[in-house]
């Protein structure tokens, strides 16, 4: 009997994972210019729902630039021009000018923790409050849920009212993740979220990412090949603003089709 239940569960899981491997973000022929300088060339990617997609490549190849097109953070920079098409859930994100709605749906975690000089609670509640949620009970519940979701509730539950800047780097980064989760996004973008962390904190964040993928579509930039191999389902290799190769992570790391990909993942350059 117990066997059967587990089997059913296993079958269910199977179905869920195949059913969910549908497109979340479709990027078609994307080009991006910083003024005269082109930084992205004909990028096309099909990013799957509830998977972790890793973006790898040498410094300056356009990973961050690409990531920031997905929540239109590049709009903040003067002189940026974008051509091509990005749809999320079938909606063209550059068609409407409602970046607010886009950014609540597509959250972002940065390389270095950028918590505000406020309490832990206020940091996590910041986004929801700006959306107009004022009810204390609702906020309390949301803050707890988000901190649990970022696997940091137990560490901070007794000092929610103290400054968030007093936490360790790894804890701060997980609060940043909690802050993003509090917006109930579909997609979470992460730009080298562990590059400023020690190995133990890094491992914690990686574990967290692996857990989070059942609820979110995650796109992560990383310089760390092992990290990409450990946590991602798909990997895109960027070089000079182009996507050289995009495939299942185990393919990229074991039998890449392009010589340049192989050279990069085996550490021969970059």
């Amino acid at each position, binding site marked *: 009997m117990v066997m059967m239940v587990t089997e059913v569960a296993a079958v269910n899981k199977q179905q869920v994972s195949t059913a969910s491997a549908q497109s979340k973000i479709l990027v078609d022929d994307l080009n991006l210019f910083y003024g005269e300088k082109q930084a992205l060339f004909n990028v096309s990617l099909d990013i799957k729902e509830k998977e972790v997609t890793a973006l790898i490549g040498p410094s300056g190849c356009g990973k961050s630039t690409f990531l920031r097109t997905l929540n239109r953070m590049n709009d*903040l920079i*003067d002189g940026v021009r974008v051509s091509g098409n990005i749809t999320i859930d079938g909606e063209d994100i550059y068609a409407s000018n409602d970046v607010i709605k886009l950014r609540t749906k597509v959250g972002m975690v940065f390389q270095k923790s950028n918590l505000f000089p406020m309490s832990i609670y206020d940091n996590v509640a*910041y*986004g929801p409050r700006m959306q107009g949620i004022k009810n204390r009970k609702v906020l309390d519940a949301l803050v707890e849920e988000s901190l649990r979701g970022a696997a940091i509730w137990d560490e901070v539950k007794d000092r929610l009212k103290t400054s968030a800047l007093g936490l360790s780097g790894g804890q701060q980064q997980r609060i940043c993740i909690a802050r993003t989760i509090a*917006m109930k996004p579909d997609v979470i973008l992460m730009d080298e979220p562990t590059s400023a962390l020690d190995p133990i904190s890094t491992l914690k964040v990686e574990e967290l990412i692996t857990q989070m993928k059942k609820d979110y579509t995650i796109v992560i930039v990383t310089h760390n090949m092992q990290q990409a191999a450990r946590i991602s389902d798909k990997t895109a290799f960027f070089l000079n603003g182009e996507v050289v190769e995009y495939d299942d992570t185990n393919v990229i790391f074991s039998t890449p089709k392009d010589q340049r990909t192989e050279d990069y993942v085996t550490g021969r350059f970059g």
Partner: protein
Amino acid sequence: MRQAKDNLLRAMLWGSAFVSVAILFTIVGYLFYKGFSYISFDFIFGDYSPIGGGGIFPMIVTTIYTILISLIIATPIGILAAVYLHEYAKQGRLVRIIRYATESLTGIPSIIYGLFGAVFFVATLKLGMSIIAASLTLTIIVLPVIIRTTEEALKTVPASYREGSLALGTTKLQTLYKVILPSAMPGILSGIILSIGRIVGESAAIFLTAGTVAAMPDSIFSSARTLTVHSYLVTQESGDIGLAAAIGIVLIVIILALNLSATYISKKFNKADY
């Protein structure tokens, strides 16, 4: 050798700190030594009598009026201007010119502002010699100070705060109000405190726009005399240094009180319910 250099540097740093503090203490000490015996309830709360003696209450009131009116006008305009220049304006030639102009304005001697105030506010706008004419003139004097310090304060707010807030789906205005201004508050505050000092220290410009009437002002449209102008005039008329020193003590207390309340208000603002 390195050790000797280090010690020398340390001695110089310590020496400079000592000299600055010593000067401050000497001045304050001298004021108290000369003026403290003049201070009494009647001196502070009594009306002025031109025959000699009498209190300085009308001047205290006038001084506080000018400070508050100038700050109430200059602070919001100055902060908004700085926010516009730093956060909204396209950084180009025009902004550079505005910035250069504000910087130059801080260097103009105040007598020039006083003359302008006398011509424009007193005569052209027909405000007459009055507290309001003086306050408007002072507003123009401190406006560049507030714009400059606020801009400097905005520059110190990390760009990552802006990005972090905007990435959470907030508007530019929300980000400004909830994250950027609170982080810039200490700098803005120091601009306001500098301005208070500038207003209190001003004599020429006030002399030309508010006049020297040593009586309790009926309203902000009355001509009146501030403490600084008063201390100048009594020293000149009677040569009584002690009286001027006593006025100095009162001024120091007023400045301290205003600075403390500015700090308190900005702390309140900073803890605004998010």
